[in-house]
């Protein structure tokens, strides 16, 4: 065997080894990611007096009552509907207002606009809970507590600065010549934005949708104070209602958590193509 064919074989072997190592690594990463789900599944099928480890899967007398209680007593389906309404509403407002605010900030880089951009970014540094009491008092005064619109406005406000930042950065990468071409054809600023710029924002909108959607879906800190009515509660505060000072209900809480995760997991499975495209948008110009 010639030395060149030997070196080709060696390269192929190295390549195969590399691939196997990569697969092994990916399998380990997948297992680590799936472990919490596995533990939640094992816990959700155990009655309270089953003290076996969470690693052990119960194979007999599965405690379906945990799932039934999560639905009937826990009201999980209702809280999932609430979460969907609040997540969709907030995400829609964040995308719409974020893009609309970002357009003039990106196109007219005046000193005032730079100041406005910096001010918006600085808002991201304020922990929402630090303004909880005045925020809550304000919501009480405008009757926004335990109403969808109240929490949607609050979550929109907390998520908007990042969205404006992302949209501004993205719009700056779109050549201003497109705006000028639209103006030459007689379009006003609003038409240029709606007809020309907005359709080009799909990739960054996907990023904003993912970030805002997951943040709002999982929000606990603000929702737990603003939504205290069981009929209006979202999924995170609802799951927390299975834990109190003296008594917990781990099996039911695990079943509720799995039900809560299901819509997001299903949505991701069907829309992953767009999500991945959105996540890498902006990394390549």
């Amino acid at each position: 065997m010639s030395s060149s064919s030997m070196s080709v074989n060696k390269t192929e072997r190295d390549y195969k080894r590399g691939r196997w190592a990569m697969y092994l690594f990916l399998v380990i990463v997948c297992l680590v990611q799936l472990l919490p789900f596995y533990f939640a599944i094992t816990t959700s099928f155990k009655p309270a007096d089953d003290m076996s480890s969470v690693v052990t899967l119960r194979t007999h007398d599965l405690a379906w009552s945990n799932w039934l209680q999560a639905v009937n007593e826990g009201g999980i389906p209702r809280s999932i509907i609430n979460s969907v309404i609040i997540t969709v509403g907030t995400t829609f407002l964040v995308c719409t207002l974020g893009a609309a605010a970002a357009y003039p900030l990106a196109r007219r880089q005046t000193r005032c606009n730079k100041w406005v951009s910096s001010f918006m970014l600085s808002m991201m540094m304020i922990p929402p809970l630090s303004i909880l009491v005045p925020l809550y008092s304000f919501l009480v005064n405008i009757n926004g507590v335990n109403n969808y619109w109240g929490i949607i406005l609050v979550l929109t406000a907390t998520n908007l600065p990042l969205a404006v930042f992302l949209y501004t950065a993205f719009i700056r990468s779109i050549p201003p010549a497109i705006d000028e071409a639209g103006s030459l054809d007689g379009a006003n600023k609003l038409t240029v934005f709606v007809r020309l710029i907005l359709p080009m924002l799909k990739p960054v909108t996907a990023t904003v949708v993912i970030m805002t959607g997951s943040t709002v879906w999982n929000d606990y800190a603000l929702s737990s104070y603003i939504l205290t009515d069981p009929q209006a509660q979202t999924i995170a505060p609802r799951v927390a209602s299975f834990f109190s000072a003296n008594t917990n209900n781990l099996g039911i809480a695990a079943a509720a958590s799995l039900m809560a995760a299901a819509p997001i997991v299903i949505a991701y499975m069907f829309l992953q193509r767009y999500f991945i495209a959105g996540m890498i948008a902006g990394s390549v110009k």
Partner: protein
Amino acid sequence: MKRIRYVAAALCGVLALGSLTACGSSSGSKKTVEFMTMQSIGTPQLKALETITKKFESKNPDIQIKLVPGTNTNENDIKVRLAGHNPPDIWNTHGWSRDRYANFLEPLENRSWAKRMKPLGDDVFKTKDGKFYALPADIQVSGIMYNETVLTQAGIDPKAINSWDAFKQACEKLKSKGITPIVSSPKDPGPNGDLADYILPGVYNEAQLSSLKRGTFDTKVYEAYTSLISQWSKDGYFNVDYTSATLDDVARLMASDKAGFYFRSNGNAQLIASYNPNVKLGLMPIPSNTGDPYFSTGEDMAFGVSKTSKVKDAALKYIDFMAEPENMQELVNILMNDSALTGVTSALGQFEPSYNYWVNERKTKTVPFFDRIYLPNGMYNTLAKSTDGLITGQLNPQSAADQVKTSFESLKNQKSS
């Protein structure tokens, strides 16, 4: 564009519909009373409240009681709601009806059931002029909870443990048998906070207590407590999984006969019994350095009515209904404590024999919860954190006492300013 318009229109429709359904509970001619229960979903406590509520609503069709289940952050929820001038109509005061919430609650001493309050609760619920602000279901009489099976196996008689030296010997016996002597958890302030709250009354003598109440914190006195915990930690008495142990892990250790002592109220036996309904638990008084062993007493499950409630009459009517003996019995049956009202039979469950022995036969003295009487509001978390530092070894007895002193003086100054 058309598609965007359709999406926007659909969303507006959903939001409009949604906001209507979300606030639907306040519509109609019914008076809706919001009741923050502090009990988690699916627990016997919440189920008992649901049973009583259904009975009440069937007799009072014009009143709807909205039971709000609790979470671990219940006390913060209440504080925020009080700060926002939007308290619930009724809430579970859980130990603080007099010392924290009195300014926000309707006084209840003129209600028809007030004369049924047991004298044991006078120190716990009432002010000096006899006012009180919540309907108590039970009175916590707390000592050291023990696993009877484990103590019997190790040849320990809990009735003979009347000093910390005797307690230490019992711990050594348990340890030699491979059993965890004391369990605690840092995941919730409760176990470590109670550890301090239960032991501290026996560290101070009367003169020192008076001095503390006047606002003088002596670290040397407090070090008697911190040294005790630090030594227990060094001796390996606490559960080996302490830093990661949750309340459930601790309850499982007790339920599976792997641990001896737990410094928590009887109500916590619910969680232990949920893991093992056959577990045998008992209650013993807390040894003291300055006198006889004692029990700590305090408010447990109690319900106060907001004095600014728009449906105060309906809320008070519900409270009066709960106080009726047959309704109160529903609650007391699952609380494992002494009932606070006469006409209601205490249901201490497996604590009955030890409770009867210590409280009724031996007339063991009772003292009020330490932090409620001698420490400024907000100190409970400091007690829990400094005890955690002692157990993990991050604090020594002196630094833990200094930490508590700093917090004591800061909170005391806040209160007086």
